[in-house]
């Protein structure tokens, strides 16, 4: 009872604090503090309610237990991180986004390809990727290569569609200007169309970050060496080691958010000229 009560109290306090903070002028401090307080409030409420309602730890462990498991298993978590994120997700992300980017430029050069590939691409993009995972594991083996392949397949089309759209984003007048200069195709591409496409390209890159991580983890459910975040999650559930499962989920969420945030920062630097980046 006392736990539940304190849960509600924490809720109220956190909420109040955030309302107060968010109505102060925006500074980089409040910009950071508000979401963090929000998160801490959520986590504290979770702790209180799990304890107060006596929820079995094999269903939902309290955050304190997760933290302990995290601290005790840093070796495992690090090994899994390297296997899944660095080897699987990152390499797949780079290959997939890179290939999509080059394909987009090729498609853009040949309108025939564009008219043919995009509708088909949309169909392929609709393939539920969960279904592709077992097939790719079958084709590329158990190790990280098949995870990277899943990531490549997952990020390719979102990236392609965004880049193609971005390459068409320059307006008529901007392109006409290049015509009056008799600029070559390459000059137009480098000086006009790629800069104009940047917001779209970054949109694709951002979507791809979350997809990459999910893809790499999910693919490990369909066969893997005995390490990796997906492997650990799926086997630990079977062992009812839910605290370790959640520790892995925390890693995934932190890494995913950091990955996303990193790309968003890069975007801010590269496209500072774009209206959406100007407060």
């Amino acid at each position, binding site marked *: 009872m006392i736990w539940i009560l304190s849960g509600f109290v924490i809720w109220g306090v956190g909420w109040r604090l955030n309302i107060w903070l968010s109505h102060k002028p925006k500074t980089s401090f409040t910009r950071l503090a508000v979401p963090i307080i929000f998160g801490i409030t959520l986590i504290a409420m979770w702790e209180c309610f799990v304890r107060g309602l006596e929820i079995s730890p094999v269903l939902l462990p309290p955050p304190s237990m997760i933290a302990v498991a995290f601290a005790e298993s840093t070796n495992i978590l690090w090994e899994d991180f390297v296997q899944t994120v660095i080897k699987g997700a990152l390499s797949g992300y780079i290959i997939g986004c890179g290939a999509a980017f080059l394909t987009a430029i090729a498609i853009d050069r040949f309108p025939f390809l564009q008219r043919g590939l995009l509708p088909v691409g949309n169909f392929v993009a609709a393939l539920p990727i969960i279904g592709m995972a077992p097939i790719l594991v079958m084709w590329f083996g158990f190790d990280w290569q098949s995870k990277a392949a899943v990531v490549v397949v997952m990020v390719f089309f979102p990236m392609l569609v965004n880049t193609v759209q971005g390459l068409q984003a320059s307006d008529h007048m901007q392109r*006409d*200007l290049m*015509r*009056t*200069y008799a600029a070559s195709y390459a000059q137009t591409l480098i000086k006009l169309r790629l*800069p*104009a496409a*940047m917001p779209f390209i970054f949109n694709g890159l951002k979507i791809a970050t979350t997809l990459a991580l999910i893809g790499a983890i999910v693919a490990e459910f369909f066969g893997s060496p005995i390490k990796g975040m997906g492997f650990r999650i799926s086997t630990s559930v079977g062992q009812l080691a839910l605290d370790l499962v959640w520790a892995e989920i925390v890693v995934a969420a932190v890494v995913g958010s950091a990955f996303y945030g990193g790309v968003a920062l890069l975007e801010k630097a590269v496209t500072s000229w774009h209206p959406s980046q100007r407060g």
Partner: protein
Amino acid sequence: MTTDPVISAKNLSLTFQTNDGPVHALKDVNLEINKGDFVSFIGPSGCGKTTFLRVMADLEKPTAGEITVNGVSAEDARRARAYGYVFQHAGLYPWRTIGGNIRLPLEIMGVSKSEQDAAVKEVLEMVHLDGFEKKYPWQLSGGMQQRASIARALAFHADILLMDEPFGALDEIVRDHLNEQLLELWARTNKTIGFVTHSIPEAVYLSTKIVVMSPRPGRITDVIESTLPKERPLEIRDSPEFIEIAHRVRDGLRAGHAHD
């Protein structure tokens, strides 16, 4: 001196196909522009001024008739980089600073870095934007953007300058100043200039030839050769000759509107 036509349009027509039927933006347009001419185009909104300018610059292909520039096709002239073009809206690239925007055509044409610097400095002074080289377009007011766009077209020395309502967003004083500057540049370089405007005094003040157009379909209703001298102080706008030409332009315009 005998003047070869720099631009010569013969029976030019351009029809846009739109989903609610064809739009005759230009119909049977004939015009000759000689080297060193300053030609203004004036006419009600939608009469085809922009379209005509775009055809000259090979940004639009005529559906009938013929246009030659410097004796070759408009396309060849474009490839030879014969044009400087100022668009109706500033159209600066938002990811480049003002300096970077002005530098753009120079980079494309392979001008050396030091020459670029010199050119940028020169044209920025000409349009009174010195000190704004490092600013981004959105950090400037509308009028300043328009001036930057003019500077960009002046930065490389094209023979033919096509300007689509370049001074629309400017106040009278700045406009007068830029008018003078433009005349000075024109006199100095002997460029051929095509100039679209809505302002009758501006057209009369600047031009050697005023082309009055009327819409639906877009055609030329009058071509007025100016009798004003090449040397034109601002005061010339109070001279009877000036007022008479302005009257003739206004009458031509009114006739165009009557067709509505």
